C-alpha cells in the first residue's frame, strides 16, 4: 500500500485498471477452466456410459443365451476406442462372463458394482447394468484412461494463459491510452501549480474549456488564480501604505529629540535613539529588558504610580551622572499587551537656568536690602567711631576700663569691615579688564597661600595644559575669587589632603578646576552654597562664595560644583577665551 501511495496518478490508474482487469480475468479464466474440466469429465462420463450402454445392448442377447464367444467378440471391438483400457461383462449373478484388456494393460478384474461412474487413480471406471425391457442380463464394466482428459486440460490451461497474457498486454496498452485522458489534464494542472508556487507568478492561466469535471476544475483554478492575483495586488498596495506609514511614524519616534520609551511587563521594550543619547548608552540592547524605574535616581515607589502623569525625575546615566527629566507617561497597550508609553524631556539645562535666575533674583533683592541697611549703618558707624576716638583721647580711664575701650574699638572695626564687605558685594567696584594668562593668575593666587597650606598638611598639585589660556579679567577680583575657593578647600580638609588645581584651555573657553579631597558638601545644600549669608561655619558671614559668584557673573563666566560626601568637592570655572 505504501508503494501504491507513492505512485503518480498515472501509475495509480494503470495499477488499478490492471489489478481489476487481472483479477477479473484470472477469476473468470479459473472459473472457465474449472467449468471446462468439469464439462470434460462429464462428457467423458457421458460418452463412456453411452459406450457401456451400447456394448451392453449388443451383449444382451449373447448374455440371454449364454454365448460367451459372442460377448467376447463384442468386447474385442473396443480396440477401436483407444482410451478404453479394460472392460468386462458380468452375468446377472455377478460372475465375470467376458472381459477385454487393451494390449499391454494388465489389470485385475474389479469386483462388481451396481451402477457407478467414478474417477479413480487416473481412470474413469464405469459400471453399467445391462437391462432390456426390464430384464436384467448383467453388468458391464469399462475402465477408461483419463490421459486424453489430462491432455485436453493442459491444452485448455495453456490456451487460456496465453490468451490471458495477450489480453493483459492489450489492457496495458489500453490503460496507457485511457489514463492519458484522465491524468494528462491533471498533470497539466499540477505543472501550472508548480509554476505558480515556484515563480510566484499568479498571472498564468489554464485557459482551456472542457465539458467534463476537469473543465470545472480548470475554470475553478483560473477563478482562484484571478482572486489570488487581485488580493495580492490589494495586499501589496495596503502593505506598501502600511509600510510607509509605519516608516513615517518610526522615523518620527526614532528621530524625535525627546526620549520615547515603551515599558511592558516591567521591562523596557523600546527606547529611541534620543533616549539612548540622553542616558549615555550606545545600543538599545543595553537597556531593553531592564525596568525603566531602575534608571531613576533614588528609590521609586512602584505602588503609587498615577495612571497618567507628568513628573520631574532624575535619571542616572550610564556614566553615573544625573540628568533632570520631565517624564510624561500613559498606560496603554503595545502589541496587544498592557504597557506604559512615555516621553522624557531633558530639563537639566532649563532647571539650571531657572535656579540661576532664582539665585540672581535672590541676590539682587538681598543686595538691595543689605546695601540700604549697610549704607545707613556706615554713616552712623562713621560718626560713632569718630566720636568714640575723640572720647578715648580726652578721657583718662583706669586700666580695666581701658581694656574695655580697646575691645569696643576692635568690635567697631569688625562691624566696619562687615559693612564694607556687604557694600562691596552689593555695589562692587567697577572692574578694569586686562588680558592675562590664566595660569599666571592662578600661580599668583597659589603663591599667597602656599606656605600656610603646607603647614596645614595640604599638598598642592598643579595640572596646566600648555596652550593659550589668555582671558580678559579684572586681575584683583580674580585673585580674590581663587583665594576664596582655596580657603574653602582648606576648611574642608582640616586633617590635610590634596588640592588639585587645573587650568585647561579649550577651543573657546578656559576652565579652571579646584578639587579637594575633603569632607564634601551634602547634596541637599549644594544648590544653596552660592547664596549670600549661607554658611555652615560658625565664624564666617556666608559671603565668600556669594562674592565669587558675583565676580564671575560680571566676567560672563560660569561656575559648577560637584561634590561627593566624604570624598571631596570640585569647583569648575569656565571663562570665555580672549583672542
Amino acid at each position, binding site marked *: 500500500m505504501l508503494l501504491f501511495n507513492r505512485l503518480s496518478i498515472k501509475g495509480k490508474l494503470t495499477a488499478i485498471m490492471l489489478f481489476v482487469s487481472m483479477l477479473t480475468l484470472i477469476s473468470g479464466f479459473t472459473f472457465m477452466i474449472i467449468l471446462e474440466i468439469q464439462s470434460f469429465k462429464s462428457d467423458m462420463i457421458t460418452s463412456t456410459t453411452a459406450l457401456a450402454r451400447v456394448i451392453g*445392448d449388443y451383449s444382451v*442377447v449373447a448374455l440371454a*443365451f*449364454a454365448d460367451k464367444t*459372442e460377448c467376447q467378440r463384442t468386447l474385442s471391438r473396443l480396440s477401436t476406442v483407444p482410451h478404453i483400457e479394460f472392460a468386462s461383462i458380468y452375468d446377472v449373478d455377478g460372475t465375470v462372463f467376458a472381459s477385454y484388456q487393451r494390449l499391454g494393460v494388465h489389470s485385475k478384474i474389479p469386483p462388481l458394482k451396481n451402477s457407478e461412474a467414478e474417477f479413480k487413480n487416473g481412470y474413469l471406471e464405469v459400471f453399467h447394468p445391462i437391462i432390456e425391457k426390464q430384464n*436384467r442380463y448383467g453388468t458391464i464394466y469399462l475402465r477408461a484412461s483419463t490421459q486424453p482428459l489430462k491432455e485436453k486440460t493442459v491444452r485448455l490451461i495453456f490456451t487460456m494463459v496465453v490468451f490471458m497474457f495477450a489480453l493483459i498486454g492489450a489492457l496495458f496498452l489500453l490503460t496507457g491510452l485511457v489514463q492519458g485522458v484522465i491524468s494528462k489534464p491533471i498533470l497539466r494542472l499540477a505543472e501550472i501549480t508548480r509554476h505558480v508556487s515556484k515563480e510566484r507568478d499568479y498571472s498564468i492561466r489554464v485557459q482551456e474549456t472542457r465539458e467534463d469535471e476537469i473543465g470545472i476544475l480548470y475554470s475553478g483554478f483560473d477563478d482562484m488564480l484571478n482572486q489570488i492575483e487581485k488580493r495580492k495586488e490589494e495586499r501589496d498596495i495596503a502593505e506598501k501604505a502600511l509600510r510607509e506609514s509605519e516608516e513615517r511614524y518610526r522615523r518620527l519616534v526614532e528621530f524625535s529629540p525627546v526620549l520615547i520609551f515603551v515599558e511592558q511587563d516591567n521591562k523596557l521594550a523600546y527606547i529611541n535613539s534620543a533616549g539612548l543619547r540622553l542616558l549615555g548608552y550606545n545600543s538599545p540592547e543595553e537597556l531593553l529588558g531592564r525596568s525603566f524605574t531602575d534608571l531613576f535616581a533614588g528609590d521609586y515607589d512602584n505602588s503609587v504610580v498615577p495612571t497618567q502623569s507628568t513628573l520631574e525625575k532624575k535619571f542616572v546615566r550610564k556614566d553615573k551622572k544625573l540628568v533632570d527629566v520631565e517624564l510624561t507617561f500613559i498606560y496603554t497597550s503595545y502589541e496587544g499587551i498592557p504597557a506604559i508609553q512615555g516621553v522624557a524631556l531633558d530639563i537639566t539645562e532649563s532647571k539650571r537656568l531657572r535656579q540661576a535666575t532664582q539665585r540672581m533674583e535672590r541676590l539682587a533683592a538681598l543686595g538691595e536690602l543689605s546695601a540700604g541697611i549697610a549704607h545707613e549703618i556706615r554713616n552712623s558707624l562713621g560718626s560713632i567711631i569718630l566720636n568714640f576716638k575723640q572720647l578715648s583721647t580726652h578721657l583718662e580711664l583706669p586700666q580695666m576700663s581701658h581694656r574695655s575701650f580697646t575691645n569696643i574699638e576692635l568690635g567697631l572695626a569688625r562691624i566696619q569691615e562687615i559693612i564694607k564687605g556687604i557694600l562691596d558685594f552689593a555695589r562692587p567696584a567697577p572692574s578694569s579688564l586686562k588680558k592675562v594668562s590664566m595660569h599666571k593668575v592662578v600661580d599668583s593666587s597659589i603663591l599667597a597661600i602656599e606656605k600656610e597650606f603646607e603647614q596645614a598638611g595640604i599638598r598642592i598639585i598643579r595640572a596646566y595644559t600648555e596652550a593659550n589660556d589668555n582671558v580678559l579679567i579684572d586681575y584683583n577680583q580674580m585673585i580674590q575669587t581663587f583665594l576664596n575657593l582655596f580657603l574653602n578647600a582648606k576648611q574642608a580638609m582640616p586633617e590635610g589632603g590634596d588640592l588639585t588645581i587645573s587650568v585647561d584651555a579649550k577651543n573657546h573657553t578656559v576652565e579652571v578646576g579646584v578639587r579637594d579631597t575633603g569632607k564634601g558638601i551634602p547634596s541637599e545644600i549644594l544648590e544653596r552654597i552660592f547664596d549670600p549669608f549661607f554658611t555652615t561655619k560658625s565664624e564666617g558671614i556666608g559671603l565668600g562664595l556669594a562674592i565669587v559668584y558675583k565676580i564671575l557673573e560680571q566676567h560672563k563666566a560660569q561656575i559648577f560644583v560637584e561634590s561627593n560626601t566624604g570624598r571631596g568637592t570640585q569647583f569648575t570655572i569656565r571663562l570665555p577665551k580672549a583672542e
Partner: protein
Amino acid sequence: VFFLCCTPSTFAQESEYKVKAEFIERFTRFIEWPLDSQILDPSKPFVICVIGDNPFGNFLQEMAKNRKIKEKKTEVWIVTEFSRLKNCDLLFISKSEKNRLSEILAEIEGKPILTIGDTAGYAESGVLINFYQAQNSIRFEVNATAIQKSKLKFNARLLKLARIVESKHASF
C-alpha cells in the same frame, strides 16, 4: 425395480430341457408378434404348445408358472389335435413329429406362431428356430426364409447369435 429372472449362470450343469425351456421364454423377449394377433388381448394367456412327445417333462410348466410372457399369463398345452394349433402363440414341435412336420407347418402357415424344434433338419424344413448342440452348449439356428415369410419380427441381435440356414424342399 426390475423383474429379474432366475437365469442360471451355466446351463451346462442344468438339465438340457430345463435350459431349453428357459431359452424358449427368452426367444419371446426378442421376437415381436403382430399387433393384430391375439397377443394384445390381455384376457387370453400366452399359449406355449408342445406337439408330439413332450421332452420337457415339467420344466415348461414350472417356467410358465412363474413367468409372464408379453405381460400375460402363460399356459402350456400339450397338443395332439391340429385343430387346436391355431390358438397357439408358440409351438414346440417334438422330434416325434418329424414325419408329419410339413403337415403341421402347413396347418399353421400364415399364422403368427413361433415354431421351435430341436431336431436336426427341422430348420431347413421351415421351423423358425431349431436347437442344436455345439461344444457342450446349446445353440440355435434359424431359417431365414421362413423368418422372412413369417408374420413375426425377429430382433436382429437374436438373428446375429443364431446360425442361419435356408429352406430345403425335402419331401418327408
